[in-house]
């Protein structure tokens, strides 16, 4: 199933890139363009060949693990994708941790104390989390910290391996921004899903059996309520892989989304095609993991 999906995506993205107006040579030469210079660059980049040839040249490289080289910088695309993926993945994981720390306890609490004061506060907070756009929150956060505390996060990127503490300091603000908007929807989902489960007969049975409340909630209710939450979180992680461009830009974090966006603006086909294909693969894998996770959460689900 995976191979045909990815092949289809590779063809689609290749064609889409051809369809959008403007090309990389215009971007490289700008105002200095002459017909002679254009011809030289087209030849140099191999975009003077027929489309079918271009596609097969590219895809046959991909099969061998060679995603080609950037039109602009000449740098190999695949190692760059991997490096940036590690950054985006780290950011996604941190954002999830932030989101879960906020969302699960509050979501459960809000379901248990339905219509109480706490519930209302949580619901408003969740609504804010969902509706305040990430870029606005990020800009406000930066301005607030800069103007009130004179603080600006470190601008030089260092990886987790080089300096874990510094790396965390860089990543924590974007993680909070991304996490809080994720938390909003996860919180809402947790609340409604919990409410539904809490109404069911087996919870009454568990309570009647005399199980302590903690066990009732965590082992029985939350576990049963978590299928739609896991689905949601899975989708969100998929989105976080590439959909965090704006946040990455604001905090100058060299993630995968940033790479893709620059690639699109500069019509750097190998970058765009490679990144989209890679993201699609990751997305498919995450979906697979989510499906597998279902069977652990709810043993009644089996895949034959």
């Amino acid at each position: 199933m995976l191979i045909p999906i990815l092949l289809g995506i590779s063809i689609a993205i290749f064609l889409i890139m051809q369809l959008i107006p403007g090309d990389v040579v215009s971007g490289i030469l700008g105002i200095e363009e002459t017909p002679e210079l254009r011809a030289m660059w087209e030849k140099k980049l191999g975009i003077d060949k027929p489309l079918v040839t271009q596609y097969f040249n590219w895809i046959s490289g991909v099969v061998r693990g060679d995603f080609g080289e950037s039109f602009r910088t000449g740098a190999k695309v695949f190692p760059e994708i991997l490096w940036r993926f590690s950054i985006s993945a780290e950011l996604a994981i941190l954002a999830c941790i932030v989101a879960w720390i906020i969302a699960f306890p509050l979501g459960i609490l809000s379901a248990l104390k339905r219509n109480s004061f706490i519930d209302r506060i949580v619901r408003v907070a969740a609504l804010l989390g969902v509706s305040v756009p990430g870029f606005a929150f990020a800009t406000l956060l930066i301005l607030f910290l800069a103007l009130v505390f004179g603080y600006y996060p470190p601008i030089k990127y260092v990886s987790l391996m080089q300096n874990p503490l510094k790396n965390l300091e860089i990543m924590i603000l974007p993680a909070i921004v991304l996490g809080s908007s994720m938390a909003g929807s996860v919180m809402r989902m947790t609340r409604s899903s919990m409410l539904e489960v809490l109404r069911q007969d087996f919870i009454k049975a568990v309570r009647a059996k005399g199980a302590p409340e903690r066990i009732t909630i965590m082992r029985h209710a939350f576990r049963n309520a978590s299928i739609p939450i896991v689905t949601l979180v899975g989708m969100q992680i998929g989105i976080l892989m590439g959909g965090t461009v704006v946040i990455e830009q604001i905090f100058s974090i060299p993630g995968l989304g940033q790479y893709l966006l620059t690639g699109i603006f500069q019509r750097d086909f190998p970058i765009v095609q490679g990144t989209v294909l890679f993201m699609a693969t990751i997305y498919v894998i995450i979906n697979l993991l989510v499906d597998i996770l279902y069977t652990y959460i709810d043993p009644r689900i089996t895949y034959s």
Partner: protein
Amino acid sequence: MKRILSLVLALLMALSLTATAQEPMVLKYGTDAEPIGFDPHTVPALASTRIMLQMYETLVDVDENMNVVPLLAETWEQPDDLTYIFHLRKGVKFHSGREMKAEDVKYSFERILNPDLGALGNSASYAGYIEKVEVLDEYSVKFTLKQINAPFLSALASSYLSIVDKEAVEAAGGNLLQSSGGTGPFVLGEWVPDNSVTVHRFEDYWQEGVKFERIEFYVITDPSARMSALRTGEVDLIVGDSAMLSLAEKAKNVEIYKVRSRNYTTLCLNLNKEELKDVRVRQAISLALNRQEIIDLAFNGEAEISGFAPASMGHWAVDVLEHPLYQQDVEKAKELMKEAGYENGFTLTCTVGLLDSIRNSGTVIQQQLAAIGINVDVQNKENAQYVDDWKTHNFDLMVCQNGAGTDPNRAVAFFFSTTGSANIAEYSNPRVDELCELAAGTTNVDQRREYYHEAINIILDECPNVTFASPYDYIYASTDLKGYAPTASNMVNFRFAYIEK
């Protein structure tokens, strides 16, 4: 408790003070876009040029008054109109430590003129007129041109014609996109994509007095994040625009540098469009515009009224403030429209894109042209599409920002001669062509000025484009940054700059 706390704080301060005293001097520069490699011969992007200018040098330079001054060539002579002999400065070293000699100059120009490279300098505006380059001795090199070309000398100051180290090019596999092989005061260091580029001081640089041990360029695309980074001292200097002024003025630790630029914003008219073929319609458009209003609304007032040869071009510029077509006169414009037979007006599209100032200008122009019956449909295009439309001349009206360059040949011939490669209006006037050729064919400055002024005045009267503004460039820096003086020709010269807290 309080006493202990203050003691600890004092200790920390003392520590940090000694730490800064020993630390090498670093300039942190917040830029707005990711560079795309550092080969001076093939990369035109401004985000790259800022950094390349630290690494590469040219034979000559152009000073503030547009005079050609020595750089890597100490002197030069011109035995006849087609021949230039340059005597190179001795003791100039490449980043590899090898001395730069005549062979390297020859190699650099052969590299530029090699058709397989697709170098930006391989065109009539730059090195295209070079017939051959010969080495006379270790430090002398002779250029022979195919035809007389007066702008040649000032074109040599373009970074597209930088002198590069042959061995460095070969070692890097033919391109310098990710390495440095120049003679400039800084050497390329670490490049973290979409985050930062570091350049280190070149200890064997031929000029004394470079104080920064390194310059770190940080990509901070979001303008307000960039300004926050400056205000908190996280960076020392940022690329800015006039929209940041209000924030910058409030900050005590921010110095504002306002520089007259050689760029201008203009409304290009497509002369293939039936209505725009008529010079009266074009003049009516010029008369209909209230240029100061466009500047106030689209540039926050941070631009000056300008023609296509802006005031920053010094003696080459033509003052347009008194030009009759630059005085808004809607009645006269309506009359001209009536004479041309367009009493009832017509509809044109106006393509905008790339910059906010361009987009906003389009909207203001739309309002102003409505007064003379021209109905403008503003079309906002995505960047690459905008550039594409520019190149294929696919527009009725288009708001563009152009650079007038370091020689009037660029400002006039490149944009307005019949064969000029940026003549997107498809304007053609035999007298202008003749004047451009005459001006390129003589090295007498007064004579050249006369030719260009005549050409500029013809073009101003015939309005193949209607220019309105030359925006100021803005740079914001920490008040601790000293010895930095940006100019229109070079905004990134940090040779004499230093930080003093």
